């Protein structure tokens, strides 16, 4: 019995290998005859398969970090700060990219704009399952500069999908994805909570004012990831080992002027002490909210 199972498994495997080889052959023939954009649009019409995916990754201070500033409140105080992959980039954008690759085949590249101190978080993204990484060697500028670097890199690479988190937890601007989309003249599907591929069409659910919208899009697009798009993955030992040898290409930045600059930081005024109200007399709370805080 076991032998029979083994032999049919073997046959299936060989058949699959033949199918895959055949698919590659067809693809290579197409690629040989068509160039750049033409191939892309044809590929979009055929099917999303062997997807070429770019995920934008940035570093952010761990959520529990103490937020303080130095140099006369002009610089973030990095003293004792642990950096993590920006959670929206890691949990939702990166994992979604990896899920798509696992389902449809393809390649996941991450891109980070920043100095060498970003390499630990890039290795983490590789450990989770990205295939290779690009670091644009530039001490981070404003969102416009970051988006310009990503667009300059992605422009000739023929990505089917560019993913980013919905915002970073340090600047909360929600700008880079939309800017990259505009620079590359691609659709931008912001705040997506679900992405599925149906043949040549991508179905996206996203948060819009007052509700959820379901959209369909064909051809390459940029998507910003919100909660729900994917489930966080913890890298395993094999992933961590493999990440050490995956390619991390450092490329030079293109020259772009900053359009905005942070001139100083301020911490909010400390909260006054909590005023406690007796649990048996919540009417006192109502009185305070009305007369003292004047919010009801």
């Amino acid at each position, binding site marked *: 019995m076991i032998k029979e199972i083994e032999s049919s498994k073997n046959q299936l495997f060989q058949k699959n290998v033949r199918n895959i080889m055949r698919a590659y052959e067809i693809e290579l023939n197409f690629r040989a005859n068509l160039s750049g954009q033409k191939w892309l649009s044809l590929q979009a019409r055929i099917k999303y398969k062997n997807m070429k995916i770019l995920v934008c990754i940035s570093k952010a201070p761990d*959520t*529990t970090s103490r*937020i303080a500033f130095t140099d006369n409140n002009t610089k973030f105080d990095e003293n004792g700060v642990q950096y993590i992959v920006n959670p929206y980039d890691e949990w939702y954008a990166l994992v979604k990219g990896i899920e798509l690759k696992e389902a449809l085949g393809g390649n996941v590249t991450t891109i980070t704009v920043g100095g060498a101190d970003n390499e630990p978080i890039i290795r983490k993204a590789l450990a989770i399952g990205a295939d290779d990484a690009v670091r644009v060697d530039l001490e981070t500028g*404003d969102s416009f500069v970051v988006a310009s670097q990503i667009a300059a890199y992605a422009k000739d690479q023929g990505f089917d999908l560019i993913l980013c988190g*919905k915002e970073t937890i*340090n*600047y*909360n*601007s*929600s*700008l880079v*994805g*939309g*800017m990259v989309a*505009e*620079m590359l003249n691609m*659709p*931008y599907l912001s*705040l997506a909570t679900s992405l599925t591929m149906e043949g040549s069409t991508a179905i996206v659910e996203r*948060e*819009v*004012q*007052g*509700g*959820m919208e379901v*959209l*369909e*899009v064909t*051809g390459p697009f940029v998507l910003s990831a919100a*909660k729900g798009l994917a489930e966080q993955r913890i890298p395993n030992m094999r992933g961590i080992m493999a990440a050490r040898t995956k390619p991390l290409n450092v490329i030079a930045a293109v020259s772009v*002027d*900053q*359009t*905005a*600059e*942070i*001139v100083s*930081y*301020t*911490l*909010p005024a400390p*909260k*006054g002490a*909590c*005023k*406690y*109200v*007796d*649990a048996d*007399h*919540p*009417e006192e*709370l*109502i009185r*305070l*909210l*009305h007369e003292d*805080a004047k*919010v*009801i």
Partner: protein
Amino acid sequence: MSVLVYTDLHDGKASKGSLEALSYASKMNAGDVVAFCHGTLNGDGGMGAFGAAKVLHNATENLDAGQIAKLVTDAAAQTGADVVVFSHDNSGKAVAPRVAVRMNAGIVAGAISLPDTSAGYVVRKSVFSGKAMADVSLKTGKKVISIVPNSFGLHRTDGTASVETFNGDAGSSSVKVRSFKPTSTDGAVPLPEADIVVSAGRGMKGPENWGPVEELASIFGAATACSRPVADIGWRPHHEHVGQTGIAIRPTLYFAIGISGAIQHLAGVNGSKVIVVINKDPEAPFFKAADYGIVGDAFEVLPKLIEAAKSFKSH
């Protein structure tokens, strides 16, 4: 000179976030406030009453962010506006970055102050998920500002706006809308726009115990919200989840019932003007961020609080 405001229409009227953006633009004192909107518009969409002098209207219903950005940029050029204002809401987040690129404009996304033009052009924004503020200097001639919802309030001017048809070339799009599903049911207040929010967490012990939470909310005309664990185990819908990974809100009054106050939750609510915490654990970290606190069992406190709120409302 004029300021262009992108406004979002719902049932023919401008959304609350759009009216806040108009109020902000009129307080800038930087010339006429012109609104751009698309879709179905009734009258002036209620925009004249909040500072709009003119409404540019494109009747096309479903436009993708790229097409809207194109029209907004054309409208800014036509009206000679150097500044375009958005609400930093789901619509603004989709369109504003594209407009900034198209206009070669610097952008402040998530503004919480009016521009300070005493030295350059500086706008304050919220950073580190509400734990700090940054003053951002824009270096470009043209500027885009998107304002955090619920941070400026509405400024009624009681004017009327003239409505002009705006037929620009929006271009084509490879995006099609399949369906739209509103999150708020009839009568309920959309969470991001609510002035008062009643939020509850695991301390409620089960979805069947949400009755008093909803009752307290309905007395105040408030929206309901919840903490992450409650949304994750499916006691409440995901769109109610406030916090770092859910949505960030800035109501005037936030009730946190049976929520311990993890730092990730606080990141979503620390912009609230007044925070009330009800928790039976006196050591709950949320009390440190609270303005008013009640240490007590929610199941005992809530019925009394509801009675007190009812009697307050009936007076």
